């Protein structure tokens, strides 16, 4: 069994480890760190923070089931609805190109669905060297169980080194299932992916505790290495219609189709045309709006921006807007280019869902509201006056702009 220990000769009693431990398992006794093994979860925070290498986590030697060098290729799982490819896929392909170059390997795209063959070239134009295609009526709808079987088969046959998927409802549910079957390492909701130039290790960076800390995750002994990637963090790959690649057609055995789960229907959300996770701009409303009817002001501003409509928890709980619009800890985590918080005070539960947005604009009448601590631009004022003015000004800018 593995364990953790303090090398007493190296420990200088600086107490950094005591402060970083998330479970308060470390105390100082006679100026040396002592770890309470009943509390320690072996999370890895203290060894990485000790400047004196005085804390080590010892592991048993892993018996490799397969030599990692047998695994080649950076794969992207293609999410789509009826062949309409999600933009996160192009973000992943862009990243996959960089990773594949650093590793000296190819970019693969895994494309499953019904009547999608004619869309495969689009993936090559965006950076895939090989498209692994299964065009089968049984795969018309995304069903975790069936897609898992199909992709697990491909993984066994082609042995990819890395598999990336969008950190979407579909992506997260699918890869978790695949990773169990193939015994792969899986890191959720990454915001950074890099190859260490020294040892070619795949470094996956992700926020934890709602973005209050960042963790770098590696997976040295298991292949493939899998990660889901947060939407809108990485730029999309440009299309280049002169790119060429290989389309590898595969099939799925009828016996692999799971009869225990059936797709019945999909109902598109009626309220907004732009969905939160795809949006470049989000206009969000909070309790400062005062009453339900004032949410119209948020919708109006969102419309002229071409933005999605977000909300704080308070407005959802008050029934002003459906839950699917809630941003924050018990809602969605978003990362748009511009996030406009209107009448939102900025409780920590809201901040963890939006603080990684690239530009944050906050409007609130309370100058001490915590939202101003994360905002790039703040307006201290009454949302009911400021928001309609923003809408009006933006309309004027649009109408004065030369027609395209």
């Amino acid at each position, binding site marked *: *069994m*593995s364990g953790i220990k303090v090398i007493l000769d190296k420990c200088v009693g600086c107490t950094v480890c005591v402060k970083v431990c*998330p479970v308060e398992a470390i105390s100082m006794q006679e100026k040396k760190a002592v770890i309470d093994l009943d509390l320690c979860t072996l*999370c890895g925070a203290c060894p*990485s*923070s000790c400047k004196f290498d005085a804390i080590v*986590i010892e592991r*048993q030697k892993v018996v490799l089931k397969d030599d990692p060098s047998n695994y080649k290729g950076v794969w992207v799982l293609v999410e789509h609805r009826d062949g309409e490819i999600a933009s996160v896929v192009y973000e992943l392909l862009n990243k996959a190109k960089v990773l594949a170059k650093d590793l000296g390997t190819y970019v693969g795209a895994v494309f499953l669905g019904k009547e999608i063959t004619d869309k495969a070239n689009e993936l090559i134009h965006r950076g895939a060297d090989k498209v692994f295609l299964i065009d089968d009526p049984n795969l018309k709808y995304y069903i975790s*169980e069936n897609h898992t079987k199909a992709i697990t088969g491909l993984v066994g046959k082609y042995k990819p080194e890395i598999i990336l998927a969008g950190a*979407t*409802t*579909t992506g*997260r*549910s699918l890869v978790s*299932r695949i*990773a*169990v079957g193939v015994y*792969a*390492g899986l890191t*959720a909701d990454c915001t950074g992916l890099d190859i260490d130039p020294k040892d070619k290790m795949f*470094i996956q960076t992700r*926020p*934890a*505790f*709602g*973005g*209050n*800390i*960042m963790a*770098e*995750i*590696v*997976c040295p*002994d298991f292949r493939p290495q899998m990660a889901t990637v947060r939407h809108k963090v990485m730029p999309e790959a440009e299309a280049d219609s002169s790119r060429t690649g290989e389309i590898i057609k595969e099939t799925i055995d009828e016996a692999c189709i799971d009869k*225990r*789960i059936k*797709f*019945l*229907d*999909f*109902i598109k*959300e009626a309220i907004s045309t732009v*969905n939160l996770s*795809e949006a470049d701009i989000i206009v969000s409303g909070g309790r400062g709006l005062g009453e339900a009817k004032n949410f119209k002001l948020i919708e109006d501003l969102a419309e002229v921006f071409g933005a999605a409509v977000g909300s704080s928890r308070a407005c959802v709980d008050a029934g002003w807007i459906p839950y699917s619009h809630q941003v924050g800890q*018990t*809602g969605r*985590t978003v990362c748009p*280019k511009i996030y406009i918080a209107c009448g939102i005070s900025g*409780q*920590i*539960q809201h901040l963890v869902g939006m603080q990684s947005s690239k530009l944050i*604009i906050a409007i609130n009448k309370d*100058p001490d509201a915590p939202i*101003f601590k994360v905002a*790039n*631009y*703040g*307006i201290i004022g*009454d949302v009911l006056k400021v928001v309609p003015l*923003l809408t009006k000004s933006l309309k004027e800018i649009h109408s004065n702009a030369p027609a395209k």
Partner: protein
Amino acid sequence: MNILVCVKQVPDTTDVKINPETNTLVREGVVSIINPFDMYAIEEAVRLKERFGGESTVITMGPPQADSALREALSLGIDKAIHLCDRAFAGSDTWATSVVLAKAIENIGKFDLIICGIQASDGDTAQVGPGIAAHLDVPQATYVRRIDSVHMDTEPKIMVVERLLEDGYEILELQLPALITVVKEINEPRMPSLRGKMSSKKAQIPIWGNKELKIEPTQLGLDGSPTRVSKIYTPPQKEGGKVFEGEPQDVVKALFEEIKDIL
């Protein structure tokens, strides 16, 4: 209907603060709570049990202090609790965590439904629920916002659920036994009753370690976890932004001056 609920004890994010001088988490006085999404899983289990009878059981994998999370679940109306607690489980990533939970569920025996919160607020992975379903080879529906219908008198038993997606929702039919993970929209959790609180204090909660679960040591804890944390750091603090104050006309104009290049 026999239901299992998997919960996790997490630090209350409201209390987690960063010390800007040392860039470390300040934990003094941080209380532990049941992961917020798991509260909806507990409530849904209690409601289903009230409708269809049977037994509800809550399980958690965690250190000795996670006992209080189990007692809270009991006070909310869950019938039984089992605590999965063993040094050998420490250092588990989502793969190794889902093995322990799946193995415990196998040990408990026959069940119709497993309910988990969609994700835990400390890790935000949403990987453990589907991981358990994969280990047990049962169908799954994640991000469930509503259970439309349950048919306990058909063979096999069937459940129809709505899954919340980015651009709408989809309706799935699942054969039981199955696993669902739930979002906040599914219900409004009740407060614990006084009687529930009293009886939960006295409840006997069995503790299972690997002696009971008998998982291969190579699949356990740190050794069974494919992923490793190589570094943890606090992200650079955002510097205070530019703040405009004054007449609405003027501040809106000033803001557009600043952002006109990016629009």
